[in-house]
């Protein structure tokens, strides 16, 4: 069984200094489900991710905190240790090096540190890693472009987009989840909502 009281303490602990730490975590949906959370990381200063806000899908298995949280980037990101396709993350503490001594906050901070210090020799995305090693300036340009395209647009004015789509007659929860799935692209969300 999921240790509910611990998760609640973790949420409070993580969010109390989010302005300083640059990481935060909230419930994913409004239904109070503590096993599905949404984390955010602000891109570290001095990296191609600077200025971006990266959203992380966090799922807690029933064995948490003995089993690691399952984390995946929702915001598309160009990084050797994160899949540019599906956001899967290659980080030891999310796998065999997880320990109950770690927390959601330390895990998110580790992801933030990973953005600052890629490990191309242990890649999740071989293409990105190869580019990082062979053509570093191109890597930086691409990573910065992806940050501009995906990590900024999604976080700006999401509420306006929700409102607009809700006014068109779609249920709010569906609008939010659809916007989520297309990284906040309003047109694609509308297309998806219409095609049902």
């Amino acid at each position, binding site marked *: 069984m999921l240790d509910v009281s611990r998760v609640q303490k973790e949420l409070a602990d993580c969010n109390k200094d989010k302005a300083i730490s640059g990481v935060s975590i909230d419930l994913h949906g409004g239904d109070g489900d503590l096993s599905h959370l949404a984390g955010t990381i602000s891109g570290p200063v001095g990296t191609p991710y600077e200025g971006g806000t990266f959203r992380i899908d966090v799922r807690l298995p029933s064995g948490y905190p003995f089993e690691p949280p399952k984390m995946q980037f929702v915001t598309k990101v160009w990084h050797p240790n994160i899949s540019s*396709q*599906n956001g*899967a993350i290659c980080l030891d503490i999310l*796998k065999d090096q997880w320990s*109950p001594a*770690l927390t959601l906050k330390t895990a998110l901070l580790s992801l933030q540190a990973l953005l600052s210090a890629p490990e191309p020799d242990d890649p*999740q995305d*071989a293409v990105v890693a190869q580019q990082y090693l062979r053509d570093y300036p191109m890597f930086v340009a691409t990573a910065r472009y*992806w940050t501009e395209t995906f990590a900024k647009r999604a976080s700006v004015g999401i509420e306006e987009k929700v409102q607009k789509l809700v006014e068109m007659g779609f249920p709010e929860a569906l609008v939010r989840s659809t916007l989520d799935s297309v990284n906040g692209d309003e047109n694609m969300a509308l297309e998806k909502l219409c095609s049902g």
Partner: protein
Amino acid sequence: MKRDAGEADGDLSDAAPASSPLRKKPAAEAERQPLPEMVETSNSSANANIVDAVDYEWSCFADDDRMQQPSSIAEDEAAKKPLIGDKEPLSALAEEYQSGSPILLEKIKLLGEQYVALRRARGDGNCFFRCFMFSYLEHILETQDKVEVDRITAKVEECRATLQNLGYTDFTFEDFFSVFLEQLESVSRGACTSASHELLLETSRDQSTSDYVVMFFRFVTAGEIQRRTEFFEPFIVGLSNSTVNQFCKTSVEPMGEESDHVHIIALSDALGVPIRVVYLDRSSCDTGSLSVNHHDFIPDLDTQKEISQSSGSDIGNFSKPFITLLYRPGHYDILYSK
């Protein structure tokens, strides 16, 4: 669900050479030449999403393949044995080596002069901590030694303070501390009957309770190592070439990480509990006379003084461990002396 994924992993890993650095990546992704301009139109971004859907499962499996497949085999094997086994006569050990090394058989015979029985622990990387847990709680259950219970309770509070001083957040360790203290309370509450013994065995075999106590010991061990960094540093550098802090993060705190002499020294010191480890291996000396080596891990002198003062006995008395573990390379079990 998990097992199904594991089997699918197996198929994929068979198809890809283990040495290929691209093994984890779906072919479609490897062939893509991603440049900034490729994603400029929303059209190609939509295409990328279609590729996502197709690739998604593939890459999940490939990733799991690397991380989970080997461990799931080990887990399946281990799960067949209870976390803590029944008491077995020492002859059961001899049977295991019937067609094996004569040195080992001879050593088992020698063990029989001092020890009568053993109790096995599951080989899941936590065996040292689990053996220590059972052995210690069983000792308290059988002796009902209130002085020892008070002493260790005070020690546990010191360990709690150590972790707080090191900057650990309370909620990361408090649950594990309370489960251990509950277990201690439960075994020191009354006489040792067959029912209370059965209960101890039951809780030690319960995955959740047992893992909470193991994790408690891992916290205590990590705290002690970091509290006395200077003392432990040379051992750790020799063992793993990492810093004390890294060592705790990677080799002490994660469940399933095996224990070495560093862990034993730290746990024994932190709780002030001496531990004897008897080594059953193929080593022999040239003089022809075979002997079974053992090492007593005795808590550091300060702790010893504290203990002998509180119990009124002298240091010499104290240094006889009541916990004896049998070590075979890579694994610990519990030994019972005559």
